[in-house]
């Protein structure tokens, strides 16, 4: 079961009356960290709610492994979901909140307590475990929700904007936690608008807009498919003018900009591999001193700009 565990969506659509939530989504989300990116109203939360059974698809089928999402008694032993809703039952401490919902799994109070303490410890909230959730800061509330979602060690962790409200240190800790879960072979599906962090943590991305999946896959693979936008390659070297003239000789070079400090250049090309070959040849055969070569737009931010643009800003 765990070996080939994946979230499978087949032709999934969701309409709220006449309003489109998501439309004809088919995909398989495997192990590792997958990030959902898109503007407000793109359908990210709807997709997460569909995957966790909080809303039902108007059409299509969703399963985790071979278990349909409607089988709540089984599926939620595998899934933990940290929603975007910043709401908690009144009057509970952090420990009571996490432990209480674990007892709903059917665990004994002692076992629930043990797991709740472990989860709160993992998110760095053990010291505040006996304080009322209502007295928590936004970052603490975010972390206690995360603890609640992961306390039963789910194989699939779904997180809606998990980095919201976290200070940089807490953010780094949560990212480490997510990485550890992914490294342990779990499926981590997150939606986030903090694109540079998505870039760093994601094994793959799903770009959504207007309820449609615009692109999905590894960031590099998706970038390769965006052919209408030339690749931007940054090269830092000692003879940028020489490299620029040789780059212009290549058919696929679109534009070259030499840096003001005359120590590098930015090349727009439709064939990044061809440019890399040229740089290698110049370095090996003609003594060009290369300081750095790196893609300038092989990241989520660029993909977002290319595929979604400025429709509604980042979400």
């Amino acid at each position, binding site marked *: 079961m765990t070996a080939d565990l994946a979230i499978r969506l087949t032709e999934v659509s969701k309409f709220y009356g006449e309003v489109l939530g998501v439309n004809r989504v088919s995909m398989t989300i495997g192990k590792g960290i997958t990030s959902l990116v898109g503007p407000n109203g793109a359908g990210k939360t709807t997709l997460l709610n569909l995957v966790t059974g909080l809303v039902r698809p108007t059409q299509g089928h969703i399963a985790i492994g071979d278990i349909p999402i409607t089988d709540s*008694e089984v599926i939620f032993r595998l899934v933990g979901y940290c929603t975007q809703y910043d709401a908690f039952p009144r*009057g509970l401490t952090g420990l009571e909140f996490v432990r209480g*919902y674990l007892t709903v799994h059917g665990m004994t109070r002692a076992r629930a307590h043990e797991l709740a303490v472990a989860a709160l410890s993992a998110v760095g909230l053990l010291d505040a475990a006996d304080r009322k959730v209502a007295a928590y800061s936004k970052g603490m509330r975010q972390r206690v929700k995360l603890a609640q979602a992961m306390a039963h060690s789910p194989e699939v962790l779904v997180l809606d904007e998990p980095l919201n409200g976290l200070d940089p240190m807490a953010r780094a800790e949560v990212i480490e936690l997510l990485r550890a879960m992914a490294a342990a072979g779990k499926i981590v599906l997150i939606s986030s608008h903090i694109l540079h962090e998505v870039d760093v943590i994601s094994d793959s991305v799903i770009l959504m807009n207007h309820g449609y999946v615009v692109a999905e896959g590894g960031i590099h693979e998706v970038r390769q498919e965006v052919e209408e936008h030339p690749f931007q390659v940054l090269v830092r070297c000692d003879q940028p003018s020489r490299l620029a003239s040789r780059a212009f000789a290549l058919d696929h070079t679109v534009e070259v900009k030499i840096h003001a400090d005359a120590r590098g250049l930015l090349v727009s090309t439709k064939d990044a591999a061809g440019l890399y070959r040229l740089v290698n040849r110049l370095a090996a055969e003609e003594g060009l001193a290369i300081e750095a070569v790196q893609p300038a737009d092989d990241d989520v931010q660029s993909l977002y700009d290319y595929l979604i643009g400025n429709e509604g800003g980042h979400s």
Partner: protein
Amino acid sequence: MTAVTDRAAWGLRLRQVLAITRLELRKCFRGRRLIGITLLNLAPVAILALIHFVPEEIAARKFTPTRLAEMYAVMFTIYLLRVGVFFTSAALSIQLFRTEVLEKTFHYYLLAPVRREVVMAGKFVAACMASAVICGTAVIASYFVLFSMLGDGLGKYMFSGPGSGHLVAYLGVTVLGCVGYGAVLALFDQLWKNPIIPALVLFGWESVLFLLPPFLKLTSVLFYLESLLPYRPPVGPLAILADPPSTMVSVVGMFAFAGLVLILAGWRASRMEIVYSTD
């Protein structure tokens, strides 16, 4: 093997119902709403306490055990049952079902490996237990405040007379009222976004029970509850009379009705979607 698996599944569900009940009971016994419910139920205690200001010689002549039993029956039927039990059940039911959706906390249950019918059952049991405790306390307190008028005769009335039997019957009717009204109001919570209006319509319906023709009386919770009262207060000249159902029909029927309504509410819950923004 299947039998064992089924038994284990039902054992698990029972544990889940108990866990949910425990969580929900905590919610019932906290918050400002509890103060309002308590004051509503204890109001008759304060009113009945006024009787102690009646001069002793008049009281001794007027307030015989039979007269006090009549007074209590009127107070119980008109206020404790129709108002106290009804509005306590309504308030707790709305708090446990609808308020959770409004406060965007209901999804925590839906994200646990538990059938939604089990969630409904746990919440219903908690609402019934809480309302039974609150209303039962009011019944006991008001009973003793009134019958303490008997002075030294109270002990005799309770243990040698009908006192304790009547009190147990009133408590039984109170618990059954909590079950019956709790079930109907839990269903209202599933059927309507604002269950207050249908709850008030139900309250109106129950209030005009005495005017209803016999076949319509059968649709009233109060009709079955009143048939179980140890002492039935007099009805007005406009009342349309009907044969009361037997004790067995009333008790078993009320639980069966509650079970049926719960199944329906569970079915509704199983189809529920969490889209808080439009709720």
